[in-house]
Each structure stands twice: as C-alpha cells, then as structure tokens.
C-alpha cells in the first residue's frame, strides 16, 4: 500500500525519468550507434512508466471496472513480449505525460469554481457571553452564536447584525461589486466582505445552509449535471472500454496478428469522447458563476440555447420595481384625510403599489398609522375594501369602482385617461361612496433595456412577450417604449401560467424571466425559468437559471453563453469522433501504430480541453462603468 502511494505521489518524477531514459535511448542509437543502450534505456523506461499505470488498472479491476489503464497495460505487456521496447516506452510515457497535461488544463477549467469556494470563510471568531473571543473552525459555529467580524474579514455566517455598522461587499452573492451600508438589525450574508467597521452578527444559518453555501453546492452539482448527450456518452463509454478488449481479442483470433491486436487496445481509449462534453459544460458554468449567473447544469444549457420565446414579468424585471407616486388627482374636501385613509388601507396589503402610497403619505407628513381599522377584505383583481375610522374605503382599479357603482364625472374620466397615458398604474380611492383621489403610481423602466432586448434578438430570440398583472394602458406604454412583440395585461398569476402553456403548445421553447419571488408557478412552467436579481432560497430552488444581479446584461450573457457552450460541446464531440475515425482508418491502412496512436489520442484530449477553455474567457466581465450607467431614468 505504501508502495502504491509512493508511486502515485511521484508520478510526475516517474514521467520525467521515463522522458530522460527515452532521450538517452535515442541518443544511444543515433549518436553512439549502440543498440544495447537503446534497448536497455527503453526497457527501463517502459518498466518504470508502466508501474503507475498498472497500479491504476489493478485498482479498477478490484472494483470490477475495466479501465483505460487496463487496456494500456495489456498493450504494453504485449509490446514488451514481442520486443517492441521503444513502442512500449513511448506509449507509457505519452500516457503519463498526457494525464499530467490533462490534470493541469482541467484544473484551469475548474479554476473559476475553485476561486468561488476558496472565498468561503474557514474560521469564525465567536464572541462569548462573558466577552471573551475565540477563533473556531467554521464547522463548529452553531446557529445563535454571536460572531465578531472585523474590517477586511469576510462574514462567516448568514445572520443579523446585533451591533456595529459598516460597508459590505456582497459581490459573491449578487455578482455586483458595490459597497452596501448595513447596521444593527440588517441581515448579512456569508461570503460578503466587510470593507470597514466592526460587526457583531448573530448567526441564523451556518455552513452549507447559508446562501453562499447553497450557491457553491448548486454550482458544484451543476457542473456534474449531465446533458442528455453526456449521459449517452457515459453509458456508451461503460460498454465501450470492455468492448475494445473483446475486439482486440477477436482481431488476434482472426488475423493472428499480435501487433495489430495490441494497437487496437491503445487506439480504443475513449479519452476525448468522454472528456469533451463535460469539460465544455464545466468551462461554461464556470464562466457564468464568475459573473453571478448560475446555470443548473448541462441539460439547462441545452434547453436554454433552444429558447426562442422570452416571456417577461413587468414589475421588477422590465422595470426596476421601485414604484413611487407620480400623479395625484384630488377631489376631496380634506385631501389629507383621504390620503391618510388610503395609506392606512395600503398598510394592510403587501402589494408593491401599496408601499409607494404609504411612502408618499409619510413624505406628505400625513399621520395615518394610528387610524382604527374595523374590517378589511381583498378583492382579487380589483383592490381592497376596508372600514377605517368609521369610513367605508375602496382602494383599487376602475373595475372596483364600477363594481361598487361609484360614478365618475367627465373631468374625472379625463384625468383617469391622462394618468394612464403616462404609463402609471392607477389607484382609485373612494370614501363613503364617492371618488376622492386618483393616484398615479409609476415604475422606472430599466435603463438601456431596449438595446439589451435587441441583443437577445441578435442572439436568436424570436418572440419577446410581457405578461403583467398591471393595467392595459400602462403595459402598452412600457411595451411601446422598449419594443416587445406581444403584451398581455391585467393577468392573474394563474393566467400567466396559462399563457406560457399556450406558447409551449405552439411548439415554442419558452424562457420566463421574473424576480423569482412571487412568480414561481410561471418559472416552474416554462422550459427555462429565470430568476433575476434574487438569491433567495425559493429562487435558487425553483428556477433553472439564477441571475444574482438584477441586470439584463447578465440575461443576455447567460443566453449567449448557453449557445456558445452547446456549440463548443458539439465541436468537442465532433473532434473526438473524427479522431476515432482517423485512427481506425490509420490502423486499417497501416500508418498508425501504438506510439503514434497514443500520441494522437493524447493530443485529441488536449485539443478538446483547450477548445473548452476558450469558453472561460468568453464575454466581457461586468465593469464598474456599466454599473455606473445603471442610473435611474424615470418614466414620468
């Protein structure tokens, strides 16, 4: 056992020694014309280089796996028996050298993931109740522990700040390198780096349960989540290697040609074929991970590359989702009172428009928090009703006003159309049976989105659709501004799902893009569900693609990257099959023998790895300049 371990740890030295011996052998032959030196150098080289290969072959056999090493071992022994020492030496050397290069290049393709996992903190400083500090291994931290984070250190847990404040760089979570100010009561994420200040954090999640831990696990799993093509190749390889052994035996039995039979063993190694597709995926997924784009594996890449229809949610996706009251039409005698009533009513809902209204009321210094609410009810697709401070309050859309027979004057009707045409969502407020307020709440269209949508089209998107619960006029306004093919408004969540189903039935491959918080049904229904700008648990679990950063650049990159990766995979499979065909012809025609066959074989493995490595550097990294450009351009 010790011997095996020693050999394995010194494989590189063995490779080098074998290279030197081969050089000595050639020198002996051509410089000294000594066949003795030549033969003995090659015999020695064959023996020392064959040892590690045979150890691997033996270990695999013990667990009933016929490995490539076994094929090579048999071939080498065969060559040795018939006195082809130079062939056996070169084959074993190339095999070892090839695996050395493979190891080096493979670790490059894995680098992006490695750099991610290395950011995971290893230790944490626990602050005990008696005020003492203790540095412990991250695995020994429990939920509820108080953790001390100092300037420059990374936060080791997910938790809430108990005391202290500081600027945190959360780029490992969001992909966005921007310092965020946080103070007591705010939550912090494992992996974020404290730029300045000192924090005491109460751990709520530790280790692999943290968001960062989940991201790492997801990316690790994703790299091994196989596309259908890969799974097929894997199955194929399982039978292929033993089959090569059988073929070699058959070749010998029928032709009695021993050299050809052992050449078959060397040529039969399925190297490039087995490694080609996975290495492309690893590189592609790694490229995404560096940019805060999580793609869940080879199958997702495959499907994403086929997407021709993108369906967008409006609020928070096409728009920034930071709504604000932008228009107020006032018909009340006491406008403060009306505003107070609607603000109090909106406190009861978690509707995004509601927050804009309560913010506005607070800003107008209207005191509404203390008002007494007797009853309240939400009417789906209309709004809400409540009895507040003795008044009957209706807050909602035109449908709600009509349903409650609230009449509108001609001026009010004109005002309503006005507000709607600015692209605002409209909130109408009736108190005790009469219309008191029309509020326009508008959202900001994402800056630069038109160009990004065009980029999606350039990469092959054919149909861009918006589905929204918002009113038709606002939806139409946004659609016109950014250029969409199809818009459906005033939809309930289940109606969005119906539309996606309809698109799928029409034979389209649909990607749904939402904020990942309240559109999980749509995300789950579409072939590719994309959660944008949210690393929440739900988003990570239900969607196929998670964009940590809320940016369309990331979306365009993810789409283009998937296409590139799929093409790259196909290239690699083509290269691998091409090589097999080439070797087969070479064997039949007779210009390929063991050593040259091994050379082509190892070279093809490196070619597919290098080809995949091109994916790592694909596309520009998001820069500070682009982030600075993400300024707010308001609708109104």
């Amino acid at each position: 056992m010790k011997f095996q371990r020693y050999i394995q740890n010194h494989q590189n030295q063995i490779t080098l020694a074998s290279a030197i011996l081969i050089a000595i052998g050639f020198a002996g032959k051509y410089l000294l014309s000594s066949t003795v030196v030549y033969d003995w150098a090659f015999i020695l080289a064959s023996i020392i280089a064959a040892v590690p290969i045979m150890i691997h072959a033996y270990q695999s056999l013990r667990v009933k796996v016929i490995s490539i090493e076994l094929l090579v071992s048999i071939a080498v022994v065969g060559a040795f028996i018939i006195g082809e020492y130079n062939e056996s030496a070169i084959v074993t050397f190339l095999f070892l050298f090839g695996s050395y290069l493979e190891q080096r290049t493979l670790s490059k393709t894995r680098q992006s993931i490695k750099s991610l996992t290395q950011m995971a903190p290893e230790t944490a400083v626990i602050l005990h109740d008696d005020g003492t500090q203790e540095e412990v291994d991250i695995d020994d931290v429990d939920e509820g522990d108080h953790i001390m984070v100092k300037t420059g250190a990374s936060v080791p847990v997910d938790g809430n700040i108990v005391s202290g404040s500081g600027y945190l760089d959360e780029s490992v979570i969001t992909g966005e390198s921007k310092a965020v100010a946080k103070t007591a009561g705010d939550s912090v994420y494992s992996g974020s780096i404290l730029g300045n200040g000192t924090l005491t954090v109460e751990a709520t999640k530790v280790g692999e349960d943290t968001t960062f831990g989940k991201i790492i696990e997801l990316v690790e799993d994703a790299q091994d989540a196989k596309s259908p093509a890969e799974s097929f190749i894997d199955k194929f390889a399982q039978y292929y290697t033993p089959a090569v052994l059988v073929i070699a035996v058959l070749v010998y039995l029928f032709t009695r040609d021993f050299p050809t039979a052992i050449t078959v063993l060397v040529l039969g190694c399925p190297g490039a074929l087995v490694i080609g597709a996975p290495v492309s995926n690893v590189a592609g997924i790694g490229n995404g991970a560096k940019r805060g784009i999580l793609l869940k594996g080879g199958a997702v890449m495959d499907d994403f590359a086929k997407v021709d229809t993108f369906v967008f949610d409006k609020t928070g996706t096409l728009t920034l989702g930071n709504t604000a009251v932008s228009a107020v039409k006032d018909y009340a005698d006491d406008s403060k009172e009306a505003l107070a009533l609607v603000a109090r009513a909106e406190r009861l809902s978690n509707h995004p428009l509601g927050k804009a209204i309560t913010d506005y009321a607070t800003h107008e210094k209207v005191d509404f928090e203390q008002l007494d609410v007797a009853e309240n009810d939400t009417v789906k697709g209309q709004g809400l009703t409540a009895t507040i401070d003795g008044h009957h309050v209706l807050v909602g859309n035109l449908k709600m006003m009509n349903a409650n027979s609230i009449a509108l004057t001609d001026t009010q009707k004109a005002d309503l159309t006005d507000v709607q045409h600015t692209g605002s969502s409209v909130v109408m407020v009736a108190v005790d049976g009469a219309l008191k307020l029309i509020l326009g709440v508008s959202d900001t269209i994402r800056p630069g989105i038109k160009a990004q949508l065009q980029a999606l089209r350039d990469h092959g998107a054919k149909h861009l659709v918006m589905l929204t619960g918002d009113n038709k006029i606002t939806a139409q306004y946004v659609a016109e501004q950014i250029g969409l093919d199809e818009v459906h408004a005033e939809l309930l969540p289940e109606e969005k799902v119906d539309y996606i189903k309809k698109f799928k039935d029409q034979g389209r491959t649909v990607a749904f893009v939402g904020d990942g918080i309240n559109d999980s049904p749509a995300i789950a229904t579409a072939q590719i569900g994309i959660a944008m700008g949210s690393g929440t648990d739900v988003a990570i679990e239900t969607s196929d693609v998670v964009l940590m950063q809320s940016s369309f650049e990331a979306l365009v990159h993810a789409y283009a990257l998937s296409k590139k990766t799929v093409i790259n995979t196909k290239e690699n499979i083509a290269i691998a099959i091409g090589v097999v065909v080439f070797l087969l012809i070479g064997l039949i025609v007779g210009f390929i023998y063991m050593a040259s066959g091994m050379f082509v074989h190892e070279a093809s493995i490196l070619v597919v790895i290098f080809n995949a490595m091109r994916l790592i550097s694909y596309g520009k990294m998001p820069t500070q300049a682009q982030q600075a450009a993400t300024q707010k351009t308001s609708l109104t």
Partner: protein
Amino acid sequence: MTTKRAVLQLDGLTCPSCMTKIESALAHQPGVEKVKVLFNASKAKADFDDSKVSAEELGQVVDKLGYEVKKIKVKDTVATK
C-alpha cells in the same frame, strides 16, 4: 436506524474512470445506500447507515484506491425507518 451523509473532499480528480472506481467501491461498502461522485468538485457524497459503517471507514476505502481524502464532513439527513 439513522442515515447520514458523508461528504469526502478529495484531491483533484482527473480521469472520469476514477469517478466510476470510487463510486462503485463506496457503493459496495455495507450500509452505503447512495453514492454520488462530483467529478469537477472532486467530492464524493455517500448516504450511509452509521450503525454499519463510519464516515472514516468510507474515507479509508477511497484512500486505499489511491485518492487522497482531504476532509470528511458528516451531515444528518432525514431519519428513515
């Protein structure tokens, strides 16, 4: 009986056949129910019955195959009857 999950962090795996080797070696251990080897992350995950085998023993199995085990983590999974 409780099922636990051992996560073995290995030194970089390079050949896809190493994966098959480790996978089947672990799967043949008594008490091991599910094995998954992550090739790119160089991790082996195994669900096992801790009354029949220990995580350390699983580590030794992989070690004997000639792959260095850098770290072993054991997690509780949902208890099964």
